[in-house]
């Protein structure tokens, strides 16, 4: 009994000493609480992009472009199909159909909803001569594809000076392995 009481007393004294010690240290070293990384808050859309060059080609600079960038894709079609069609016919007044057989309304109806269709199996490419809109690979010549669809007419043979920019590849080779993109210049 007596031994226990002594022990308790000793523990109490020790505890007090430790507490005092801690208290004295407060001004110098705060208890090492590691703050959790703060990811709180609400984040609001500023830019949106899927298919290459599409919103820049079909939407005017300045406020219209900002507005398009802040639109969610599910509401783009209703708002922007007619805008895209006007732009398409301004770029190419002779547009009838393109190499995919699309009328101006069909083509711009597809483009105005800016999402990139991606296949979960097989080749992923914007256009490789066989597959159409199954993804976008680094080496895809997306500009030539778009120029061809905008200017090339139903056979792809119209306006030959406007259907390719004659830049067919990147200026650095890509890697077959992650992270795939070439090192910075």
């Amino acid at each position, binding site marked *: 009994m007596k031994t226990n009481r002594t022990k308790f007393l000793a523990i109490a004294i020790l505890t007090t000493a430790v507490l005092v010690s801690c208290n004295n240290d407060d001004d110098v070293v705060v208890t090492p609480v590691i703050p959790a990384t703060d990811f709180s808050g609400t984040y609001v*859309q500023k*830019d949106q992009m899927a298919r290459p060059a599409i919103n820049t080609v079909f939407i005017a600079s300045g406020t219209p472009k900002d507005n398009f960038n802040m639109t969610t894709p599910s509401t783009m079609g209703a708002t922007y199909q007619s805008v895209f069609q006007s732009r398409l016919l301004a770029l190419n007044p002779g547009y009838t159909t393109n190499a995919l057989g699309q009328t101006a309304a069909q083509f711009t109806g597809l483009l105005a909803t800016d999402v990139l*269709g991606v296949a979960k199996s097989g080749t992923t490419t914007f256009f490789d001569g066989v597959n159409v809109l199954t993804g976008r690979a680094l080496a895809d010549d997306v500009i030539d594809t778009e120029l061809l669809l905008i200017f090339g007419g139903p056979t792809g043979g119209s*306006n030959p000076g406007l259907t390719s920019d*004659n830049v067919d590849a990147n200026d650095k080779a890509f890697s077959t392995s992650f992270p*795939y993109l*070439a090192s*910075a210049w």
Partner: protein
Amino acid sequence: MKKSRIYLGLSLVAISGLLLIAADHADAPAVTGNGNDITDVYAFQGENTSNMVFVVNTQGLLSPSATGSATFKENVMTEINIDNNGDNIEDLVIQAIKRGSKMYFFGPTAPGTPGTSSTVKTSAAAGSVEISKYGKTPNIVTSNGMKFFAGPRDDPFFFDLNQYKAILAGTAGGFNNPGTDTFAGTNVLATIIEVPKTMLGSSSTINVWAETKQKQ
């Protein structure tokens, strides 16, 4: 006749102030100079064909001398949106956001509330990677079957943009052959994520788009 009509059309477009800057480089006033401007989005099958790779590039046309000081912003979240059922509403998101010297990744996970306003899906933390420095070996982290990279890379986009502008301005009748890659020798800040396809839902195709979202 046909050609002159086209040039007339192009000239009218140029006069009306439509400035074409592709792919999406130097995009719009609200995203200029604040880390929000997405230049390009890529989605392709990985070296391991069971995986899908997503690339979101921002801050385009960085010269080599400007690349070392270009930084991701802590108030800008990059979000890859994935639609599984063709309604163009995201069913899954993958988020990336910088804290300190690292890029943190979340998802793929349901967005909760889809659309233009988001929170970071901290319950679906996927991993983090030290942001790679200019001119150094890339830092790559593999976590939860996913691979992560964030940092400067060569801009993979290629286009004779200057000649296209000249065509629109009516000072050129067509492209040159060979053309000149306006994006040669320039860099971007790349966020690259490789994900097992099994984590992207059960549909045979997906619709993909990227967003940058800024903290309010």
